[in-house]
């Protein structure tokens, strides 16, 4: 387990990688055996490919040029990254506003909760009417789905600074800005990263929801097409790419967290 014994900063990169590999080995094994079970079940039970393809059949579909994987993948990638970045900025900004003033907190928070309870899947078709279709509307739809955990987590983090610490620096005549930059924000970092991790996976969902409603290309568009033309292996291949995209984005957040706020990351296994 990283972070248990290897707390010294001079630990070599090789050792850290080895530790990480050991850390993820069990989950990798479970995922692999799930694929194996799926493959065996499909083969032994003679399931028709259009009902449920084997993982191998789905994987092979990725080699078929007629699905234009790179174009479709990039389209979805742009929407996901756009929603992720926009949610991160919007989420942190809103959280700062909320925490800055108690009055604002009381005013804005219920509205945010209200907005978050709306099923975005039902709203998405309206976004198409308001904004048209394409990568931009999909970014907006993704943002409406992904920004809420960002706001809540960041706000909690900003508000959770230790009161003794705040009193101490106030006694030392610290300005509000100084308190924010030196106490509140660093204190909120672990929470912000938790928000970013949720944001990473929800942006993916959001972008796909958008593509389901209206699109000319994208992995979500492929999935819908495959549902109607019964190209089920292609649906599963798209799902594999979407999962890989989500995992990669999540991984990037974890890596950045280790660089920016290593103390937060090291706390995690103990929680």
């Amino acid at each position: 387990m990283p972070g248990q014994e290897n707390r010294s900063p001079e630990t070599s990169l090789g050792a850290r990688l080895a530790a990480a590999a050991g850390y993820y080995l069990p989950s990798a094994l479970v995922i692999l055996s799930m694929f194996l079970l799926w493959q065996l079940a499909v083969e032994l039970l003679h399931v028709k490919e259009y009902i449920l393809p084997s993982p191998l059949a789905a994987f092979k579909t990725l080699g078929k040029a007629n699905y234009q994987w790179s174009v479709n993948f990039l389209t979805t990638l742009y929407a996901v990254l756009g929603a992720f970045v926009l949610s991160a900025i919007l989420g942190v900004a809103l959280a700062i506003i909320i925490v800055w003033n108690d009055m604002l907190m009381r005013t804005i928070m219920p509205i945010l909760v209200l907005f978050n309870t709306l099923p975005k899947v039902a709203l998405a078709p309206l976004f198409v009417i308001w904004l048209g279709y394409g990568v931009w509307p999909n970014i907006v739809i993704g943002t409406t789905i992904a920004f809420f955990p960002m706001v809540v987590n960041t706000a909690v983090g900003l508000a959770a600074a230790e009161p003794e610490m705040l009193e101490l620096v106030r006694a030392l005549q610290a300005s509000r800005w100084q308190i924010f930059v030196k106490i509140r924000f660093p204190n909120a970092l672990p929470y912000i990263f938790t928000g970013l991790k949720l944001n990473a996976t929800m942006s993916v969902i959001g972008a796909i929801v958008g593509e389901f409603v209206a699109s000319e290309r994208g992995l979500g568009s492929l999935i819908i097409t495959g549902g109607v033309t019964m190209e089920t292996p292609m649906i599963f291949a798209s799902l594999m790419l979407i999962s890989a995209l989500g995992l990669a984005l999540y991984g990037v957040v974890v890596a950045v967290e280790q660089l920016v706020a290593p103390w937060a990351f090291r706390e995690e296994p103990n929680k």
Partner: protein
Amino acid sequence: MRIKSFLLGLAGLAFAFPAAAADKATLQLNWFHLADHAPIYVALKKGYYAEEGIDLTVVRGAGSADSAKKVDLGQAEFGISDAPTVVTAISKGANLKMVAVVFDKAGNNVFFKKSANIREPKDLIGKKIAVPPADSHRVLWPAFASVNKIDESKVTMVNVKPEGKQAIVAANEVDASFDLYTSYAIWEKVLGRGQVGNLLWADYGLPIYGHTYFVNTDLIAKNPKLIERFLRATHKGWRDAHADPAAAMDAMTAAVPGLDREALLATMPQIMDLCITERSKKNGIGWIEPEIMQKTIDITYAGGKMDRVVKLDEAFSNAYSSRIKPVR
């Protein structure tokens, strides 16, 4: 035991039903309830299915592919789907067979605002058209375009969710949308009464089949009479709905909550035009014309989504045809 079966026999005599318990059967619709499903409800209401010894459950649909899948998996005995979807499923190993057509003329159609100035298929050149991805219209479009000498590359297709077709036209994001003629009522609701323009593809040189009734081949092996009985009851429903559309609509709106009776009833004349034709007057409602079915398979195969060629006798059979004819 003996007393029980004796009593059951008596009960059967008393109701003039066959002594055997009714066959339970499920009909998987192609889509949510539209006017073309009303004949099924009038048949239910008048007891035509009961007379044939069928205890019928009608299940709302989620698209032709979904219906095909459910019937193949044995979750429903009967399904309604687009003929192109059924043959595509057969080509992918589904054990299905079509036993009757819902419409003798396919309802494939393009809707637009009347103000869009679309008067013939050629006017679609240069336009943006909303179509759900790989909707049957997409499969048929190349054939329709070529018959009408339209350069396909000069018409832009936009993917939309089926439920979003009307809204995206209303918002002027696109000029038109391919949608079944049977959805006319929804279009009037969104675009406004008298504001809807349309071109029915069947009127412009595309003789193909759209919706059909189909079964699992297991049912053909196990209980072929059930298919005959089902179609007889269903087509009596169509015959009656043709004679009295309002009563048919009442039967459906009474059984299914949340339907807009007036809007649906308004589309009944057009729906009957698609179902009741010279051919169905001659051969009975639901009769499948081999030539048109062959054309439908050919066009679908050319669309490139079928895994193999499907032969005509594999795709359909008229063996269970009801021979019920319209009264006028």
